């Protein structure tokens, strides 16, 4: 049994040493919505009310410090996430924000969502991009839940849950 533990530990070290790098992780996903870009953008840019289409959020609280705006998302599964608005560009239809701190296993997470025209005037494409690192940035061994895979899983689940909900919300308003 002892040999098995030693072997598994050695295997873990080999695997983790191999499976990481100083690499920003990327989640980039999009959804097509049957509505005009102007309609879709009016919902996407509404930083203060994103809880309408973030199904994992039970409450949103907005704070302004000088010219900076923040939102605290209370998660349905427990925990909070503090996010800072980094810019809204109406010409490009692009909103940028970052996670300042919170109960998500990511570090330095910067995100942007864009709205572009689809195949016709009544179709839009929304693309959500997140750039982030895993929580643990030092030498292996990497603590459980702080690796690249945990960070990627967390952000994938956020975007996978949000985009269909955004589509449903906008298309049901018509």
């Amino acid at each position, binding site marked *: 049994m002892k040999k098995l533990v030693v072997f598994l530990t050695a295997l873990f070290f080999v695997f983790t040493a191999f499976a990481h*790098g*100083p690499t920003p992780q990327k989640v980039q996903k999009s959804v097509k919505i049957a509505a005009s870009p102007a309609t879709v953008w009016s919902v996407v840019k509404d930083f203060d009310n994103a809880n309408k289409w973030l199904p994992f959020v039970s409450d949103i609280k907005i704070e302004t410090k000088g010219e900076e705006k923040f939102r605290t998302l209370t998660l349905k599964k427990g925990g909070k996430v503090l996010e800072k608005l*980094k810019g809204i560009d109406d010409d490009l239809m692009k909103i940028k924000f970052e996670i300042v701190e919170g109960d998500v296993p990511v570090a330095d997470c910067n995100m942007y969502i864009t709205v572009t025209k689809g195949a016709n005037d009544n179709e839009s494409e929304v693309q959500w*991009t997140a750039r982030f690192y895993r929580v643990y940035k030092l030498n292996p061994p990497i603590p459980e839940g702080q690796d690249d895979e945990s960070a990627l899983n967390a952000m994938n689940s956020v975007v996978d849950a949000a985009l269909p909900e955004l589509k449903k919300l906008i298309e049901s308003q018509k």
Partner: protein
Amino acid sequence: MSGCQNSTVALITNQGDDTVSIVNLNDLEVIKTLQTDKGPLGVEFIDTNHAVISNTKHQTLQVINLNNFEITNRIKLGFTPLGMVSIKKEKRLYVSSWYENKIYLFDTQSWKQLLQIEVAKTPSGLAYNDKHGLLICANRDENIATIIKDNKILKTIKTGEHPFGVYTRDDQAFTVNVYSNNITQIDLNNFSSKEINSGNHPYNMVIHKNKIFITNTQDDTVSVVNKTTQEFIVNLKTQEVPENIGIDETNNQLVITNWGSNTISIFDLNTLKLIKHIKTGKESRAFGNFIWSKR
């Protein structure tokens, strides 16, 4: 590849799909895509016929023959490589080891590891100043630049926060400071330093004539700054998350890799106007010197 004999090319490492896009900068098109080991990031040229890339996840270097754009050699490292800089006349390559706080020196003919230099935490960008015989290393998590002469640490210089990219020319070296939104200019004669402002989350820089060009990853811009007065001139609009930047002297072009858009952007250095965005592989990065001209 016979059509490329007099070409200038960009070697773009694409960390998201483990490829290198070979981009002909005369014709502005991708002429070849090479499959690499996992996590290609750094690029450097080691002689007139060979480039080397660093693969962060696979912990290898791979050598690319510039005559036929084939991978000809793989060097297993046992550490996570990041920045690279070569001294071509000495056939030497320095490679920063991100997690070990070390820089390794290799012979680029035998690929023997010659020595290692202990530096501060998270060594990232490397640059070599030929005039002063100095190796400059950014240590991201300690907010310093390590200045190395004859493979020994000569000095450490305080920089802005999170220095990542490094650049050197003439009597100056620069670190690009991701968190403090500036660059640190270091005088290599007396090691005095000062900060010059950039946009948000800057990553790397180059100098052309009297202009400093800095990529701002969170603004999707390149800041253009007057080198003499340090005054801001203009922002060039790139695509998403511009990381690294190089000068194509042959065609008088500025080349920027856009990690977010999986593209490179080409600007005219005279007019500072956008010429074209070119699609590459996923998560295009090209950290280091990535533009090569056949002579």
